[in-house]
């Protein structure tokens, strides 16, 4: 019996454990296994192998409701259905509200994907580097906690992940948005180019408008073919999963790669309940898992643990990892774990029309748009609010459906080929200030069906956010007007709540000082160095870029550091 136990424990012992198989966990798995570490990936959701995308080849007319969500689905999922990507073709990749309850102390739209690949199947693939100004921002503007690293520390790791993931973009030479290792860029439309030119002229180069940088294989290289991926066929149906591996997902890229090394094992339906801390060894030795289906408890052991459950889940796991050394959660000596939750403000947008280029249209499909990098307060403070915002920009032209008339007249109208004006629009992505008053914490009594405490979320917008929204409306209206756009309308999305950005960050943030932060410059818990946090929870601030590329780079950087330390016997 004793032997059996030892054997069984041996089978459950690895060099490294990665919690979560989404964008960041996939990268941890790839780097660790590629460097020779026996790695176990624990994923709470169901198995989705690359290619297991049931709707991906369906034609529009094959959907019973032509893409529309049923009332039953909407009523049962008031939160998940708020996500623009939640549709008849993609609903199976979203967490349903009732299955995973949480407590909203303030309205928070928590959008989740629990399966192999996490939200990497669903994401919109916007990928921009941070600049040095972004990392220096918190110190310059007097935030509570400052970054322990700068652009130079992460730049080589941006290159590392960009080359493997495949990022398309143009070398724009901007200080505020450094160039990366780009594949061929997508093309701007006539009106997007017009806008770019007009802005260059009117603002002397201070407000560049560029083609978006995104994780699509526009021009696949040998490294991508080796992953089994092929050129993006420009369908823009990515939320269904891509049969060609045309965009970056863990499923198409990092996970199959990790598997090919022979060093990675993956266990699905494995809800990590907590991390096990050994008081004698003074480090973490493994994790406690609840099988999602059988509800049985099982322990796995490793010398390195990467926590990549996506921001809020990572906070939950660590806060729930209680021991006599860490009664308030693993590594949480300063009591600040779970605080400083931050997000991107997406609450506003603008649209308009352009009456020029009426003899022109676009042809084909582009899974991307143009992008206006942040132009406010980049090098110095210029406005009555702190930080700034980035914006999307897209201009397209559709055939009009003329639904006038009845009978044969209507039918003829529907066959008419007529184009409307060019339509232009921008969405807003505002940086928010990380605050101690925005937090997540564990409920003292309520638990989920796996016995994990439910999370209470308390995240609010503030006055700085309101001022920034106002500025966006004024500035973008001015820019649209200067470009000759008409019918300009700004909008406020009143039903928008923090969380719906799906860029939630913080709670287990990086910093120099263990008194005010949880993680050091290598994403190790200050007080438990063999535990690494490299998803959104680690982010000290949020800047204005879509965050996942930075999670990838931080993860690759931390994983390589972990391997070095492991080899030196320090972990």
């Amino acid at each position, binding site marked *: 019996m004793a032997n059996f136990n030892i054997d069984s424990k041996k089978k459950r012992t690895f060099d490294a454990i990665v919690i979560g198989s989404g964008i960041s966990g996939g990268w941890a798995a790839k780097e660790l296994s590629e460097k020779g570490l026996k790695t176990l990936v624990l994923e709470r959701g169901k198995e989705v192998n690359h290619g297991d995308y049931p709707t991906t*080849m369906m*034609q*529009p*007319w*094959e*959907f*019973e*409701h*032509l*893409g*529309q*969500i*049923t*009332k*039953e689905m909407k009523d049962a999922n008031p939160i998940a259905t708020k996500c*623009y990507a939640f*549709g008849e*073709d993609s609903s199976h990749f979203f967490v349903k509200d009732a299955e995973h309850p949480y407590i909203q102390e303030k309205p928070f739209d928590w959008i989740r994907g629990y399966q192999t690949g996490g939200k990497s199947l669903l994401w*919109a693939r916007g990928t921009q580097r941070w600049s040095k100004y972004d990392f220096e921002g918190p110190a310059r503007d007097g935030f509570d906690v400052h970054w322990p690293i700068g652009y130079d520390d992460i730049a080589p790791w941006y290159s590392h992940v960009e080359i493997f993931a495949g990022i398309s973009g143009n070398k724009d030479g901007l200080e505020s948005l450094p160039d990366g290792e780009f594949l061929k860029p*997508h*093309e*701007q*439309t*006539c009106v*997007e*180019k017009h806008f770019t030119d007009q802005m260059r002229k009117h603002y002397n180069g201070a407000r560049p408008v560029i083609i978006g940088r995104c994780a699509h294989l526009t021009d696949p290289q040998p490294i991508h073919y080796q992953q089994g991926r092929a*050129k993006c*066929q*420009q*369908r*823009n*149906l990515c*939320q269904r999963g891509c049969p060609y591996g045309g965009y970056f997902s863990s499923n198409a890229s990092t996970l199959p790669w990790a598997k090919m090394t022979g060093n990675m094992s993956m266990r699905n339906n494995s809800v990590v309940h907590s991390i096990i801390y050994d008081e004698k060894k003074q480090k973490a030795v493994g994790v406690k898992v609840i099988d999602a289906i059988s509800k049985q408890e099982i322990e796995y052991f490793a010398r390195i643990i990467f926590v990549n459950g996506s921001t809020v889940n990572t906070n939950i796991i660590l806060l729930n990892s209680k021991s006599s050394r860490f009664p308030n959660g693993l590594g949480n000596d300063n009591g600040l774990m779970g605080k400083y939750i931050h997000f991107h403000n997406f609450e506003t947008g603008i649209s308009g029309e352009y009456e020029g*280029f009426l*003899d*022109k*249209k*676009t*042809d*084909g*499909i*582009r*899974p*991307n*748009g143009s992008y206006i990098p942040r132009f406010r307060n980049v090098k110095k403070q210029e406005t009555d609010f702190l930080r700034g915002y980035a914006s999307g920009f*897209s201009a*397209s032209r*559709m*055939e009009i*459906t003329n*639904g006038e008339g*009845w*009978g*044969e007249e*209507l*039918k003829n109208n*529907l*066959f008419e080929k007529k*184009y409307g004006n060019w339509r232009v629009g921008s969405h807003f992505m505002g940086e928010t200030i990380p605050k101690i008053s925005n937090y997540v914490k564990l409920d003292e009594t309520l638990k989920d069906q796996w016995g994990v405490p439910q999370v209470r979320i308390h995240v609010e917008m503030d006055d700085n956010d309101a001022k920034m929204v106002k500025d966006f409306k004024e500035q973008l209206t001015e820019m649209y007007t200067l470009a000759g756009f008409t019918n300009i309308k700004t909008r406020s999305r009143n039903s928008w709540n923090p969380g719906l950005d799906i860029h939630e960050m913080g709670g287990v943030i990086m910093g120099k000082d263990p008194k005010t932060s949880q993680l050091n410059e290598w994403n190790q818990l200050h007080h438990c160095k063999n535990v690494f946090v490299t998803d959104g929870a680690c982010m000290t601030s949020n800047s204005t870029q879509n965050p996942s590329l930075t999670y990838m780079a931080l993860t690759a950087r931390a994983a390589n550091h972990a391997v070095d330390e492991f080899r030196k016997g320090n972990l």
Partner: protein
Amino acid sequence: MERRNVIKSLGIGLLGLGTLPSWANNWNSDSFENLTFANSEVFIKIVDCLIPETNTPGAKSIGAHLYIEKVIKDCYSEEIQNEVKQTLEILNKEAVAKHQKSFEKLDNLQAVDILKNSTSNKKTVEFLKNLTIRSYTSSEYYLTNHKNYQMAPAYFHGCVEI
């Protein structure tokens, strides 16, 4: 980059004419256990008179009536469902009063005339018309023959002559 906008654009390809969508082939009366509408024949007449069969397929042969019935039942509130039900009843009453037959038995011109001039809720008639148009313009026939629809064009040109 909304998918729906993309569907409204582009591509090339020629597939069968006027075939029913695959979900409509699987459709059977079992899926209408709690049938909300007593007389679904009315839907056939509505879509047929709105977008009739000519030398090209109309809304009936692409199965717009099946879609309408299904989408109203699955995707809209009870309130809207009731408004539709009432509207169908009124249309039927007006048909009987004017032509001494039920709505679905009218010829297409008579049916259009009733729809256009019905005393029933104009908003609901407009709603039914929009659903019919939506179904027709999303059909395989329409997209592949009239919209150059292509699922995976594999290219994008930002500025071409019309």
